[in-house]
């Protein structure tokens, strides 16, 4: 297989120029997204540049402690982004979300890296960091949608919650419709993506692997496992986030603290 075509700096800059299309669309339709888009692209570029530098260094070192520390930093950033974007108040959610994400990641990583990929050294940087990163990034996105839907639903449809709480006399029964709705809303897009994967969309990871020189059959196997890991990790993390958060946001009478969401 041929080596991947390198992108030099000039062509990288030329590549950026295609962004002119969305920027013209924003300008023409007076959509106030220009500044946000530019900031996002600049941030993405700097972050990825730094990541490339770090990863090169980290991959060379391949030290378990440093790799774990790297993943812990990703967990921290993921939690703070989730709390901010789901409009939640940090003091109620930091502990439950850290516990949920950490335990989900340990379980999914141990299963896929240890059992499925049969790695002798599960902290091997080139597997542990990117796979954990993909699981974390996706789990964060599902949590933002899921937690926002769950707590907004509880506040908006409080009368249903209290109706069920008294009449079924069971906190779990009273929360089930809200939990179900939230998990469905968060995970449905991925179920949709998996349904059409390979038909109308080629996943980024698989494409990257093929461009990097892997045979398509290997790239596809990795892609399948990653999709399954992301889905399982995302659903576990969201469920645990809800279960752990419930311990912090209800009082002993089962009353919801309405101050948990930022207005």
């Amino acid at each position, binding site marked *: 297989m041929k080596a991947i075509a390198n992108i030099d700096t000039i062509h990288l800059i030329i590549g950026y120029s295609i962004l002119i299309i969305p920027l013209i669309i924003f300008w023409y339709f007076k959509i106030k997204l220009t500044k946000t888009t530019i900031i996002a692209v600049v941030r993405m570029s700097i972050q990825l540049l730094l990541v490339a530098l770090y990863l090169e260094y980290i991959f060379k070192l391949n030290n378990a402690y440093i790799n774990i520390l790297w993943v812990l930093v990703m967990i921290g950033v993921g939690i703070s982004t989730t709390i901010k974007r789901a409009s939640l108040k940090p003091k109620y959610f930091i502990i439950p979300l850290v516990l949920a994400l950490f335990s989900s990641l340990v379980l999914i990583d141990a299963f896929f890296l240890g059992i499925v990929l049969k790695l002798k050294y599960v902290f091997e940087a080139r597997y542990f960091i990117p796979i954990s990163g993909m699981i974390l990034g996706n789990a964060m996105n599902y949590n933002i949608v899921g937690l926002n839907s769950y707590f907004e639903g509880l506040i908006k*449809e409080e*009368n*249903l919650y209290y*109706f069920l709480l*008294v*009449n079924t006399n069971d906190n779990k029964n009273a929360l089930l419709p809200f939990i179900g709705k939230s998990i469905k809303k968060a995970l449905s897009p991925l179920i949709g993506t998996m349904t059409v994967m390979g038909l109308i969309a080629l996943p980024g990871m698989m494409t990257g692997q093929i461009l990097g020189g892997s045979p398509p059959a290997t790239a596809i196997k990795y892609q399948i496992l990653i999709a399954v890991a992301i889905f399982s990790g995302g659903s576990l993390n969201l469920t645990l986030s809800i279960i752990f958060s419930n311990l912090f946001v209800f009082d002993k009478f089962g*009353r919801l603290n309405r101050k948990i969401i930022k207005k």
Partner: protein
Amino acid sequence: MIKINNISLSYGEEVVLDNLSCDIPKGQSICFWGPSGSGKSSLLKLLMGFEIPSSGKIIIDDILLSEENINEIRKKIGWIPQNINLPVNNTTELINLLYLDKEQQKKFRFYSNKLELDNNLLKKDFHEISGGQKQRIVIAAVLSLDKPVLLMDEPTSALDTESVDNLINLILKNKTLTVISASHDKKWANANDLILHLDQ
């Protein structure tokens, strides 16, 4: 027997209930009567542990309403809220949400019949039926839970005169139920064994 002893409730500086006491014997009905803002609904919420009094205590069948006993208390209570616009699409969904077992579903059919809800109506989506029909479905579902104490907030708000009569016969004349309601409806209030007047 339900005992409300020297209950006070405030929202910030606004005093909603001030040192209120009353006893409600088993199998009796009581209607909290008063203008909007007089604390009728708040009193119902206190009985379910949704509001916490600033002083006083509530005892239901010799059980003190407290953090430790709240589940025991709620086991005894059926709750029909004022806002019947529950985000539920149809009767089946409501029955599933309340986890009605086969025996309770039989009872639901019995109460539905008493409240003049026919099978065709029970099959319809809630957006296709009137507020009064929906209110009667919720009442039939809660009654089928067979709880000894029934709390109702404005139970007749969406009902016509005939349905109010049916409800009075079905609920207030049933002496196995202790019924506590908050209402603006004179006919309903007068059909209760007791009326508690609350002033603003």
